[in-house]
């Protein structure tokens, strides 16, 4: 096994284990810390795919800014396993069955999909993830969705102010 392969398997295992821990840890603060590890593992994958800019942005924005906000909210609301409302066990069973069915179908579809048979990830080659090419794609090919998404952010901002303002 080459170094890249070892790294790939290590990062994948790390991401899966931490993602599971996010779901099963009782303490919400621990959940968030595990989620940060997931983001780090995924950023590692981006680096393997030669998308350094995306990896850094993922770390700064998600692992940095958004997760800190999450932590603040959780800590301010003082959530812990005691204050968690008891869930109905019937819902738990129903949720497990429904979620399990979806997972089964997704795994089966992706395993059998013709597009991914014998396809290999472009590790260390391909340079679309580099900042220059990303900029070209964003401001030339995808300039219309890029500009229009400003309306989306504006409306979200107006909403945040409207909701947060004291009456």
């Amino acid at each position, binding site marked *: 096994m080459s170094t890249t392969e070892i790294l790939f398997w290590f990062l994948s295992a790390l991401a899966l284990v931490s993602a599971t821990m996010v779901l099963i840890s009782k303490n919400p603060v621990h959940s968030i810390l595990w989620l940060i590890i997931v983001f780090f593992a995924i950023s590692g994958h981006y680096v393997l795919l030669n998308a350094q800019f995306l990896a850094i942005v993922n770390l700064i924005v998600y692992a940095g800014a958004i997760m800190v906000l999450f932590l603040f909210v959780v800590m301010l609301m003082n959530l812990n396993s005691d204050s968690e409302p008891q869930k109905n066990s019937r819902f738990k069973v129903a949720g497990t069955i429904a979620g399990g069915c979806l997972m089964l179908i997704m795994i089966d579809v992706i395993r059998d999909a013709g597009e991914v048979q014998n396809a290999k990830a472009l590790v260390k080659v391909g340079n679309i993830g580099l900042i220059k090419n990303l900029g070209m794609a964003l401001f030339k090919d995808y300039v219309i969705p890029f500009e*229009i998404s400003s309306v989306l952010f504006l409306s979200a901002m107006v909403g945040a102010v409207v909701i947060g303002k004291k009456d």
Partner: protein
Amino acid sequence: MNTIILSAIFGVVMMFSGIFIHNRSAYKNISSAALLLLLVFNIFESQGSSLFNINTTNFLHFNKFGLLFNSICIFSTLIYVMLSGREIEKAGNNTAEAHALIFFVLCGIGIVTSYTNLLMLFIGIEILSIPLYILTGSDKKNLKGNEAALKYFLMGSFSTGIMLMGIAMLYGSGGTFMLENVVKNGIVSYLSALGMVLIFIALCFKVSAAPFHFWTPDVYDGAPAVITSFMATVVKVAGFAAFIRLIEGRLGSMGSQTDRLIAIVIILTLAFGNLTAVFQQSVKRMLAYSSIAQAGFMLFSLFAVNDAAKEGLLLYAAAYSLATIGIFAVLAKMDDMTLEGFNGLSKSQPLIAALLAIFLLSLAGIPLTAGFFAKFYMLSAVVKTGKYLGLVIIGVLFAAVSAYYYFKVIQAMYFKDGNVVLAPVTARFKYLLLFVAALIVVLGVYPNALLSFLYF
């Protein structure tokens, strides 16, 4: 392009007018004027003269259908703002911002009626939904409204996540975001079928089709009545515009079972909506369920996807939006939103009672109203496909069921005695309501008055 850019600009204008103008009843007039301008420019664009010349290939394509749909949505919003402007002022303290958010929703509608790229679908649907989450919770003192807003936000984000996953799957299968079928050797790949089904689920959620409708009654009932009026009409029909474009462009990616899937969703939606609406005591909640039932009828257009279906969808959008906006405009002025609250309305307000009766008859699909032709076009579109004719019979049966609960309101207005507590109505309000009712009757006699725009 006119609608998208101008409505974003007008949204910003409304925000600024909130700074400079402190007379809160002025916002309604500014907003109405801006909507009128927007309507005029949109009609100009459908006649082939756009203000902006932007190369939008690969992302947006403006055709007659989408632009006429925009016109219907903008016109309905105009009527809505003129009828219910005062109630928007009462719904929260941030009236100017509420109007700005309504303009942003229209911007989203401009996108979802003309997208050719799944990225634009995603952005459009989000621009459509996010202002609504805020508007739902605009009355901050109302606990039910807050609960509705949070519920709507959480469920909406969840469905957005499902949609994104579907888009990712479609991209993974064909390597393109465009609305075109990627079929190799005549076989639809599993990945693209799964992706389409996930997007289908997310859009079903947005238009509240069963079995993804559970949020609808709570949210529509909890939100202020004016906001429900906007959500249940303009935004919901815009969701269908997005839906029919997707199905038209990517139907082949979904596999051979698509017809069966859509048929099941239609039957479930019709059954849930109509059968639960029968048992409601609150008219507001009844209208929430009836909006699910009406969505079931609009889903027929997705099953058929032919010219008749598109004409029917346009007619349905106009008939349903206008009638529901009219009913909600009166409902928002009432204290008691249960059936008893309507007892004896015909004695104290004979004109309003008569107009309400016309709106309700249109929703039930009685001939001589627009609702009849809307349902007729939908059913005939399904007949033209020659598949699943049982669906048509089921549709007619449920239309008969729906007449029951609409007539209960008419019965309460005309054949029961009681005192109606109605906020003061101006003469202007009555004339406007009369105008809307006249439009519904005109469309019910001569539907081509609207549909001819599609071909000129």
